[in-house]
């Protein structure tokens, strides 16, 4: 209860989903993946979107990440209707507003840690002389060892790779972190450390959206949106969430 009470009463709506429908057509077979979704996410929230495979959560994540647009309905991100934007403007939204963290990290294997983190700055047009300092800062934020900064990313462990990926998501200072099964390829201990990092990021004011099928992972968030067969079946504010309780869970 405490958590909700301390929140300011007039929070900015960062994400708004209005009647979102996504339909795929393949060979005359119509598949409705998302069926009329309505929800909004405020600035500073830590939301987990949970659902089994095939529930449509990945499709929802693509729409939230401005990688895809809904068949009908409106997705409004920071006041902008994404479907109305051109492809290049959508790329700008991804560059400025969203930091992606993927299950399989998606680092450039042959590039150094530094180069991987710098890459979003390259596309955002940040001057080369400012990039290194920015990258170093977020790498420290993601608790990456300094000795590894110039290692090639395929020489890292899974946990280190995900730290680099988180640093890459943070480097452009986006308001939203969108993580798709970020612990899916990590063992429990490293996974928990990564989730703790997300918590820290959320505490520092960033909106974090976590997509997962794993209830244990979802329990780390303050709010859980459950999706099944393209519909929201539950939207709970997880006020009873306690870090201590989770840390006592068996490995």
């Amino acid at each position: 209860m405490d958590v909700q009470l301390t929140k300011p009463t007039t929070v900015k709506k960062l994400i708004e989903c209005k009647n979102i429908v996504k339909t795929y057509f393949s060979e005359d077979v119509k598949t409705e993946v998302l069926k009329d979704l309505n929800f909004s996410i405020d600035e500073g929230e830590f939301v987990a979107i949970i659902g089994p495979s095939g529930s449509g959560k990945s499709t929802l994540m693509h729409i939230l990440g401005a990688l895809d647009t809904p068949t009908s309905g409106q997705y409004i991100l920071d006041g902008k209707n994404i479907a109305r934007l051109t492809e290049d403007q959508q790329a700008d939204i991804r560059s400025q507003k969203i930091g992606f963290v993927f299950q399989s990290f998606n680092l450039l294997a042959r590039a150094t840690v530094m180069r991987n983190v710098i890459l979003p700055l390259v596309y955002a047009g940040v001057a080369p002389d400012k990039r290194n300092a920015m990258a170093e800062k977020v790498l420290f934020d993601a608790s990456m060892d300094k000795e590894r900064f110039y290692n090639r990313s395929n020489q890292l462990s899974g946990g280190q790779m995900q730290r680099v990926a988180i640093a890459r998501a943070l480097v452009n200072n986006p308001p939203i972190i969108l993580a798709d099964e970020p612990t899916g390829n990590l063992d429990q201990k490293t996974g928990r450390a990564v989730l703790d990092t997300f918590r820290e990021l959320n505490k520092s004011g960033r909106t974090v959206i976590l997509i997962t099928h794993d209830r244990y992972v979802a329990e780390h968030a303050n709010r859980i949106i459950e999706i099944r067969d393209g519909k929201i079946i539950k939207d709970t504010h997880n006020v009873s969430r306690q870090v201590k309780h989770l840390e006592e869970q068996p490995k």
Partner: protein
Amino acid sequence: MKLSDLSYETYSSLSSNKARSFLTMLGIVIGISSVIALVSVGQGATASVTSNISSLGSNLLLVYPGSSRNSGPVSGGAGSAQTLTLDDSKAIKSNISGVSAVAAELSRRYQVTYKSNNSNSQVVGTEQSYAQIRNIEVSSGYFISDDQVKSFSKVAVIGPTIQEELFGAGVDPVGQTIKINQIQFKVVGLTTSKGGTGFNNSDNSIYVPISTAQRFLAGRSSISDINVQAASQEQINTAQEEITQLLLSRHNISDAASADFSITNQADIVSSLSSITGTLTLLLGAIAGISLLVGGIGIMNMMLTTVTERTREIGLRKAIGAKRTDITAQFLSESVALTFVGGIIGIILGIAISILISKFGSFNTAITWQSILLAFGVSALVGIVFGYYPARRAAKLNPIEALRYE
């Protein structure tokens, strides 16, 4: 995306697959170097034909016996007929105004021997003025004089190639006696080398008085051609007209079409031979161009493979903010870099090959700026044309499907 980022990305992706980049580039290297080398052979041929013909002498008109039914410069009948005489030559000398020198010539190949050495050479029976018309200079002794022509002297002036074959390099042949067709001739002069190759090579000729050639060697009074030098370039055509009229009246022929002689203008020879070598150059260039095309297809093939292999990377780049133009630029710059570097190596290799050909081969080569610029332009174009389609394909990938791609 800044240019420095573009070059960084290009370098890192090309160097991460060195063997493949090298082999793809090799296609362009071979294409470009063969264009340059083969075109240089063709242009070398053009240049040497032109210089050979110019070395014959300036403002030259050649009068051959026989009709010129074939319009080409090398008509089959020329020289074989026996319709020209020394008197014709003298008539031209005394009657035509725009002519500065005339020399009758009777040439044929004979066996030439000195001691045990022998050579099969062109023996040119001619007059003193021949040296002036054909730009022949004598490095030792002197050229045939008109007195020797009058007195049927058995004297010979030999070219440097013959000197080498009969006497050995550096040995002064003047004063020695050689045998031409079993008849003894005294060597009175040695010509300086004019270089050049092919037909009418003056270095490989022996000059004797025309009277001697007629009486002792050929045994006939006809001559094989008349060399006429016009006083100036402007007078060549008038001189050609006047000589035609003169010889027609001397030979009692009313119809110019049935003339028993033909007059060849030096400029005509140059232009028609140049057109032959020009065609040769074009042909060689086209063959080399095909290999360049194949190299370009190799680039496209590699780029398509690369795009497929890096589908996930493309998806990621799009997810973190890369625009279509960024992706297009990245892949296009890889293919252009390959052809650019391949083009430079190809140009260097092509120049090296053409130098080697002219050094060890039997013909000259000429590298021109045009052929280098053309090759370079073509290689850059190949990079853009063959890289554009794969690059567009990469840029058009749907980021979701690209990220999902395994």
